[in-house]
């Protein structure tokens, strides 16, 4: 236990904990948006595109994570027209994932850089969190909740039904564009914390747990952020105590919470959820 408290005094550990705390404010709300827009495949595609961005960064000498954020942001914006229908994204995502990973491997091969540097980001390195990562997560921690508070009514309509939103004066295309760009940037920003492969721990799993507990969009967002804060801090502390990599520990803890929420008694499950699952 003494070692644990000694670890907490290290600047890298403190920076990582702060980054996880900031991430817990924005990323679970992004998870809520991912579920609401029904764009689960997009996050997979973004992980691959982030790798392509990192490869380009290694080739050009630019900050790899910055390149990943830009690549993801541009891809998110480009996907907006496809988000008009649920089927529009699924096929395109398969194509995008394959092209992105192939292009990333080709860029790494041509540039002659060590591919392991790029693939390290697939697994994350939370203790290597840099000031730039904290700034990005801090910006997201302000932007995402602010957008949510500012456009809550419009978001609730858009995530519920795109046509109802359009008929209610919601600028659906513009709002979808903003959301997809935010989703893409958030996923790229979360990669340093848990790695591309485990980014769901910070985004989707708290939102999935919150979906079982809340009756409204606002309730979901509040639950998701609350679960995110607890899981991120507790998971990180547990990883330090057990001397294990934080990424997998965070995923397992977040997964356990989502699973526990799933097994809550039926009376606590909102009726809309069972209704939607039958469609």
């Amino acid at each position, binding site marked *: 236990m003494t070692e644990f408290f000694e670890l907490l005094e290290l600047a890298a550990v403190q920076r990582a904990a702060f980054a996880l705390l900031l991430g817990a404010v924005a990323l679970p709300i992004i998870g809520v948006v991912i579920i609401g827009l029904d764009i689960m495949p997009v996050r997979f595609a973004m992980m691959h595109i982030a790798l392509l961005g990192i490869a380009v960064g290694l080739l050009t000498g630019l900050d790899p994570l910055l390149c990943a954020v830009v690549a993801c942001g541009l891809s998110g914006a480009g996907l907006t027209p496809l988000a008009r229908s649920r089927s529009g994204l699924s096929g395109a995502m398969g194509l995008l994932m394959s092209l992105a990973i192939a292009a990333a491997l080709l860029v790494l091969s041509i540039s002659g850089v060590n591919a392991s540097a790029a693939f390290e980001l697939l697994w994350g390195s939370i203790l290597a969190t840099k000031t730039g990562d904290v700034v990005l997560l801090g910006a997201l921690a302000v932007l995402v909740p602010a957008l949510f508070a500012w456009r809550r*009514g419009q978001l*609730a309509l858009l995530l519920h*039904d795109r046509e109802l939103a359009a*008929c209610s004066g919601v600028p659906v295309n513009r709002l979808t564009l903003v959301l997809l760009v935010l989703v893409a940037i958030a996923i790229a920003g979360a990669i340093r914390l848990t790695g591309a492969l485990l980014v769901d721990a910070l985004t989707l799993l708290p939102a999935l747990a919150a979906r079982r507990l809340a009756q*409204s*969009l606002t309730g979901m967002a509040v639950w998701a952020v609350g679960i995110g804060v607890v899981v991120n801090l507790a998971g990180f502390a547990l990883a330090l105590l057990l001397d294990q990599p934080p990424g997998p520990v965070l995923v397992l803890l977040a997964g356990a919470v989502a699973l526990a929420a799933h097994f809550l008694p039926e009376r606590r499950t909102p009726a809309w959820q069972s209704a*939607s699952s039958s469609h």
Partner: protein
Amino acid sequence: MLVETTGLPVRLAGVSCAHGGRTVVRDVSLDVAAGQRVALTGTNGSGKTTLLRAVLGLHAAARGVIEVGRREARTSADWTRRRREIAWIPQRQAAGRFPLLVDELLASGGAPERARAAAAELGVGELGRQPVHTLSGGQLQRAYLARALGCVEAGAGVLLADEPTAALDFEGQAAVAGLLAGLPVTVMVVTHDRAVVQRCERVFEMAAGALREIT
């Protein structure tokens, strides 16, 4: 008693719509005067719903001229204005994947207070904090009707209603038929309900995508 109308005229000229290469609305032309009530009847799949959705711009593959208030919609801003001018009661009320409270649905019409008052009059005033998916079909239809009345209060000049009484009991059907007849807007209603048809000034029948006036 004469009701002062704030309705807008609707004009369709040579409107055709297709679903996946199959034409479901064929060369439909129709002039509806401001404040007029028009019933669209016909068999399932004859194109009634598609025609109403085309007026709202929800059916992308529509050709021909569609004017509301003597204006076509071409740009995104035009469509935003068009949708503000129209109160819409869809046939299948949004079965979205996400929770939406009844209060949020009512507020989306632009006049939350009026919509809440209408919801109370229609017997669903106590359900404001419930997610819409927890409502029965009839309750949901009443909530959408209350929202539409809010839209009218907010300035909509046309009501497009797609089978607005389909999920209601007999008493509810009669009440809604009377309510639609008293609205000071242009009404185009798809219906199989005689009480609603009887309160419309013009009745059309759609068959295989073609429209003809029957009364």
